[in-house]
C-alpha cells in the first residue's frame, strides 16, 4: 500500500505543537511505516511537494502576509487540512495575538525602537519583507479547514490517535482526554 503523505508547516507559534509531535516517541517508527513526512518545519524540506499530499497540518495563527501564502500553498497542495493547537483552533490567542490589543505600528515601534536594550533602532521597511497584519487571525478565516485538534499543545497521544485514525480511513472524534484546551 502506498504511504500516506503528510506535510506540516508552522505559522505564529511557539513550536510546542511540533515538540508534542516528537513526543510520539518510538511509535513514530510504526507510524512512518504508513506515513511519509514530506516536509515539516523541523526537517530539511519546508514546502509541501507540488504533486500534493494527503494530509496537511498547520500550527499557529496567521500574523503576516507571508503566512497567508504558506496557508494558501498548504491548502492547494493537500487533500485534508488539519489546524492543530490552540493558536490554530482558538485564535486569536494572547500568546500569538497579544498584539491584537494594540495598534500594529505601536507593536513594531515597541519591538524595534523602544525595547530597553535597543540603541538607535528603527522599524525595518523593505519590499522584500512581509508585512504584519493589523490583527492576527486564524487559518480558517483564509482557507477551509477540514479538521481541528485543540490543545496547548495537543497531547502526543492525541496527535498519534488522529493520524492513526486517518490512516485507517476514519475521521477521528475527539472526546475525553483527547479533547483538551490546555
Amino acid at each position, binding site marked *: 500500500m502506498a504511504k500516506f503523505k503528510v506535510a506540516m508547516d508552522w505559522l505564529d507559534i511557539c513550536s510546542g505543537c511540533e515538540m508534542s509531535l516528537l513526543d510520539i516517541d518510538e511509535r513514530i517508527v510504526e507510524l512512518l511505516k504508513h506515513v511519509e513526512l514530506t516536509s515539516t518545519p523541523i526537517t530539511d524540506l519546508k514546502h509541501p511537494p507540488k504533486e500534493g499530499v494527503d494530509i496537511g497540518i498547520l500550527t499557529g495563527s496567521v500574523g503576516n502576509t507571508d503566512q497567508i501564502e504558506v496557508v494558501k500553498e498548504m491548502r492547494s497542495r493537500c487533500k485534508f487540512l488539519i489546524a492543530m493547537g490552540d493558536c490554530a483552533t482558538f485564535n*486569536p490567542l494572547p500568546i500569538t*495575538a497579544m498584539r491584537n*490589543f494594540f495598534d500594529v505600528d505601536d507593536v513594531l515601534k515597541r519591538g524595534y525602537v523602544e525595547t530597553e536594550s535597543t540603541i538607535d533602532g528603527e522599524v525595518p521597511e523593505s519590499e522584500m519583507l512581509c508585512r504584519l497584519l493589523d490583527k492576527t487571525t486564524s487559518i480558517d478565516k483564509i482557507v477551509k479547514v477540514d479538521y481541528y485538534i485543540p490543545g496547548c499543545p495537543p497531547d502526543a497521544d492525541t496527535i498519534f490517535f488522529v493520524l492513526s485514525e486517518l490512516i485507517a480511513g476514519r475521521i477521528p472524534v475527539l472526546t475525553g482526554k483527547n479533547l483538551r484546551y490546555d
Partner: protein
Amino acid sequence: MAKIKLIINGNEVTGEKGDSVLTVCLNNGIYVPTLCHHERLTDTGACRLCLVEIEGQKGYRPACCTEANDGMVVKTDTDEIKRLRRSMIELLFSERNHFCMFCEVSGDCELQKVAYAHGIERAKYDYDQPRVRVDASRSYFVFDENRCILCQRCVRACSEIAGHNVLDLAGRSAETKIIADLNASFGESSCTSCGTCLQVCPTGALIDRKSAYLGRMEQCNITKSTCSFCSVGCGIEVVTRDNHILRINGDWEGPVNKGVLCVHGRFEPVHDKRKRLIKPMIKKNHSLQEVELDEAIDYISEKCKEMDINTDNAIGLISPKATNEEANIFVSMFRKDMVGEFGPYTILPDENQTATLSDISSSDCIVMYKMDPNTLVIGSFVKLAVRKNNTKLVLVDDNKNNFDTISSIKIKPDELDLAKEFLSRASNPLIIYTSGISEDEVKRLSGLSDKAKLMGFLAGANSRGLRNIGINGKIDVSKAKALYVLACDDELKDNFKRYNAAFVVLQTSYLTPEIEDADVVLPSPIWAEKTGSITNIDGLVQNVTKSLDSPVKTNEEIMKLLIDRLSR
C-alpha cells in the same frame, strides 16, 4: 409536597410542585448543562445553557427559571437544542478572553467542562478581545474580568447567602461588568473578603492567591472539619496537597453556616506566617533553650517539687481553641475552681433567656450592643435578617459601626432605654452582645424587655465547650504561684500575661516574642493537625478532623506524659 408527573424526552418522571424544570431533570438524572445555576442560589437564567423545549410553549425556555407543571412535555436533547447550546457556549468563549492553557482553574472550570461535553474543538466566532481589568486590590483573591461570563453567581452569593450586598452589575450587554459598591476597586470597597463569591465562581474569574497553580481538585485531598475561629462553628472543607493546606472552602452541608465563611475562617489560617514551635524550651540563665520533651517534662516536675507547686496554688488557663478532649485532660490536672479560659471573656445570659443562632433569622428586632461583627459569619446572619426579613436593627454603639447604614436606629449606650420601645413592639426580640462588657451592662440589657432573648457572643471556637466542662473565665489569676497556659494556636499578643506567677508553663504552636515570658514552652499542634470535637455557641458538638500531619506530639499526649511524671 404534591407530586407532579412530567414527560421528559419521552419518559415519565416525577417531581414536586414548585420544582423548576431543571430541578426535575437533575433529580431524575437527565443531563442539562448549566453555568449560572447553583443549588444554594436563586436562579436567574443568566447563562441560557439550560434551554429546553416545552410542548405548547413558544421558543425555548430556560429550565432553571421555568416552573414544572403536572403533565408538562419537555425535550432536553433535540438536535436543535444541542445546536443552540453549542452556539451559546461558543458565544461565551468569544465575548471575553478565555484562554485555558494558562488559566488557574483549567481542569476544574465549569465553562471548560460544558465545552468539552459539547465537543467544541475550536472557536467558531472571533474573539472580541476586549481590554478589561484585573483587580488584584484584595489581599486574598484576585478578580480577572477576562474570564468572567457574567453568570452572576458571585452577585447572588454576596447578597443572598453572605448578606454583604457588595457586588452588583453595571453597564449593558457585552459591556456589562461586575462591580463592588458604586464601582470602587474591590480592596477599597465595603467587601469583607469573606470569599463566598470565590467559592461559587464557575470559571477562573475569581482566583485564590494562595492555592493558585498549586494543583487541580483531583490532585487534592478534602477533609471536612469545623472552623476554629469563633463560636459560630462553621463547617469547613480543608483542601490539602502533599501535607500543605491549599485553601479552605465553606462546607455546603455545614449545619450552621451552610457554606458561608468569613475572612478569618477562610483566608487568615491559610496565610498564617507565624513560625512554628517544634521543640520544647526551658529557661536557663534567663534565656530559652531548646530541649527534648522528656527533659522539659522532668524540669517541670523538679520545679514543682522545688517550689512546692500543687493544686492549691497552680492555675491553668486554656484557650477556647482547645478541643473538648484536650480540655478534659487539662482540667484533670487542676483543682476545679483553678482553671480559666484564656482570652476575652464573655458573660453569658441566664439560661432561660439564652438565644441560639437560629433566633437571629427568626427575630423581628435585634439590638446589637457595642459590637461590630462586620467580617464575621454572625454578621452575615444579622445582615441577612435585616435585608431579607426586614428585621429592625437597633445599634447601640458610641463609635462608627459598619452596621450604621442598615440599622433602623443608632443609640448611645447611655440612652439604652430608647431601645425599649422597639423591643416592646417586636414579637421575637433579640439582644446580642459580646466580650468586654460588665455584669451590670448584661443586667441592664436583660432588663430591657421581658420577652427578649439574649446572646452573649463567645469569642472562642470552643468557649461553650469549656463552660460545659466547668471551666470558668472569671478566676483570680494574679495570686497563682504557677501558671500553665494551654494556648494551642491562639494569638498570644494581648492575651498572654505572666501575672505574678513564679513559674509559667506555656504550650503554644508558634515562636512569638511572648514566649520569652514563660519558664517552660511546650509545643502544640495547630487547628489542622487535631482530631476531636468542639462545641459551638448553641451547644452543638462538631468534629474537628485532622487534615495535616503534625510535626509535634498531640496536646493530649504531652499532657498525659506530664501527668504521669507528676504522679510518680
